[in-house]
């Protein structure tokens, strides 16, 4: 190899090395101290005008202050842009963790907003969504007075390895998007408001059908939804007339048939529970019976709500994919869901009675 080509090689190497400087992701880059990274975004729509509230943690010495910024406009991006212009730093939605919709707006329909979140890549599709059933302004105000020094309190509430409970629904932007497009898959998303003793008060969850809030579930019903979908219903404490039990594990088996255009779904949910508290001395048989009865009634109520709102939050339509043609499946929510024949059997096993022997 000649020395000329050797030299050329080096020039090429140096040139391509130089290129990594401009193309290494630092084009028009702004340093972290010139960016604001909101973690919670609240959205309301009043008289056709969006209102966006951003909660930005601002680290100061020793503590983290929470700054709440508001803006109004016709599109979300426009508002964020406006806020960004008026601020000394640029707003970067990359680390957004939670989007809160005011309940009035959720009832009107989240379609456009969810779609724009999906389209934009600076907002992760993993962002959790929740509904706030009080005006956003007062919600953020209350939260700030409570937890001045903790920027992540809202997030911890929803995080599975932190403050999440099985009575709280969990959904992210992409799941709502799927519910808007899918034929058989709807979601429930949590409803919260600012609490009095605790920072947040859970108010059950909202049934989202085709991107609109069409009904709501109680926390107890949400637990069943979570158990049905197979995500663990662990840790839930069940209060009844004469005993309290803790659900340790749940397993669900479904069987489905289709007769004369009527879908039948038989589900069996096996619950393993442990005794926590008893009033008097109810027999184990009695407790088992009561747990099953209670859950049964909750389940029936969910199915009733699903049929009324035509939103398949349990994704029961998924089980009938092989029984229906694609065109029929498209009308699952209107034609088949209202006629769905659901039977559920709760099998409760008292795995242990805690540290005490059953008297």
């Amino acid at each position, binding site marked *: 190899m000649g020395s000329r080509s050797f030299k050329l090689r080096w020039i090429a190497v140096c040139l*391509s090395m130089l290129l990594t400087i401009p193309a290494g992701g630092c084009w028009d880059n702004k340093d972290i101290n010139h960016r604001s990274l909101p973690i919670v975004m609240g959205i309301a729509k009043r008289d056709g005008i969006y209102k966006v509230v951003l909660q930005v943690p601002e680290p100061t010495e020793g503590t983290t202050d929470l700054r709440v910024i508001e803006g109004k406009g016709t599109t979300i991006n426009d508002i964020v842009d406006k806020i960004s212009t008026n601020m000394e730093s640029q707003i970067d939605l990359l680390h957004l963790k939670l989007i809160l919709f005011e309940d009035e707006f959720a009832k009107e329909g989240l379609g456009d907003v969810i779609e724009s979140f999906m389209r934009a*890549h600076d907002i992760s599709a993993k962002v959790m969504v929740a509904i706030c059933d009080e005006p956003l302004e007062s919600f953020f105000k209350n939260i700030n007075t409570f937890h001045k020094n903790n920027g992540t309190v809202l997030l911890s509430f929803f995080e599975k390895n932190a403050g999440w409970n099985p009575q709280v629904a969990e959904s992210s932007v992409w799941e709502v998007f799927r519910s808007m497009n899918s034929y*058989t898959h709807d979601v429930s998303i949590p409803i919260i408001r600012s609490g009095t003793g605790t920072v947040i008060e859970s108010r059950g969850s909202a049934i989202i059908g085709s991107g609109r809030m069409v009904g709501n579930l109680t926390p107890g019903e949400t637990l069943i939804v979570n158990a049905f979908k197979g995500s663990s219903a662990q840790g839930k404490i069940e209060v009844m007339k004469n005993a309290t039990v803790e659900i340790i594990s749940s397993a669900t088996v479904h069987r489905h048939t289709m007769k004369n255009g009527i879908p039948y779904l038989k589900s069996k949910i096996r619950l393993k529970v442990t005794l926590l508290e008893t009033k008097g001395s109810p027999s184990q048989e009695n407790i088992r019976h009561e747990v099953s009865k209670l859950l049964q009634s909750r389940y029936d109520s969910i199915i009733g709500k699903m049929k009324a709102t035509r939103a398949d939050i349990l994704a029961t339509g998924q089980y009938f994919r092989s029984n229906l043609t694609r065109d029929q499946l498209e009308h699952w929510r209107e034609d088949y869901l209202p006629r769905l024949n659901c039977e559920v059997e709760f099998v409760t096993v008292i795995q242990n009675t805690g540290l005490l022997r059953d008297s």
Partner: protein
Amino acid sequence: MVKTWQVANLYILTHIGVIFFLYPDNMIQAMEVSHWIGILTGFLLHIIVVWSYIKGLSLFDRRNVVDIFLDAGKWIAFLLLAPVFVYLLAVIVISIRSYGEMITIIFLSSTPLWATMLLTAILAAFLAMQGIEAILRTGLLLLVLCMPPTLFVLFSSFQHVDWHYLLPLFEGGAFQWSFVYNRSFLMGLLAVGGSFVFLGFVQPEVAFNQRYIRYASFLLLPLYGIAVYVPLLTFGHSTASRLMFPFIFVTDIVEVNWLMFERTSLFFTMSMIAFVLLFISLMLWNAAYLVQKVITVRTWSIVWAIAFVLFVICVSIDDWEQLEKLIWWNTFLRLYVMFVIPGVTLTLGLLYKRKGGAAYG
């Protein structure tokens, strides 16, 4: 030198690079249900094409396609290989341009497109300039560097899968194979017959045992399956068909709590870009090799000239629609490369064997 493993590795990596980007979207657009039939059809096509190609090559004693065709006649070789040359150029333009776009959409939203494309073009040209052996070695390096995160993301992408979406398995007249004429399906052939042609170019510098390439081709089936089915099982067809890059999107919503990185998808896309870089440089090297057979010039000057011209073409493509048009036009050339080149190679090989191999010396 016999470098079967390196060749097989390059063969797999370059395919991974193209499978996970445009292919899922193409297949999801092409069919509404029973995608596995489409995947299997593509895979069988791939097997037939690649196997007959390497079978034909193996009948000659370590010679490449260009020499084999030249023996049949200068003009025949020219006519056969000219479309291949155009095809290679188009594939390079498509890859540079579409991956440039992907980089802009996914992570560098404020970096201008020309800068990312320039970097891709320069790196690919630099690698191609070093010749096939350097490309093969780089392949090994990328295997070590990029395969662990890629495999991790491939496994974790199953996180949100709902297996019910698999059903119905047989429906919608998929067995009438009408999807074969679907524009999207044909465009998806980029992942099926995109890079195999290099197998005919590497000899005699690098020899390989055709049997292992045949084994390696079976590794592609699960990859095709994952690329299409993971988005389908996560979202369902009606939602997945609205996504521009379905598989990349699935990797984006994977949540791994115990990992310190929030977006595992970044590692995946970085690996894909590295693999595609390998793919582009390989195609560039192939194109340069063809030019060298016509005019005798040094490799580096041809490679850089081609890279420069193609970069200018890339920059002049304004939007995604134009790019899709280019992919569509290129599909015809791809069909030619997929069927004519292996067919001719195999025929010539069989003729050569019948004559006892002595006539050609």
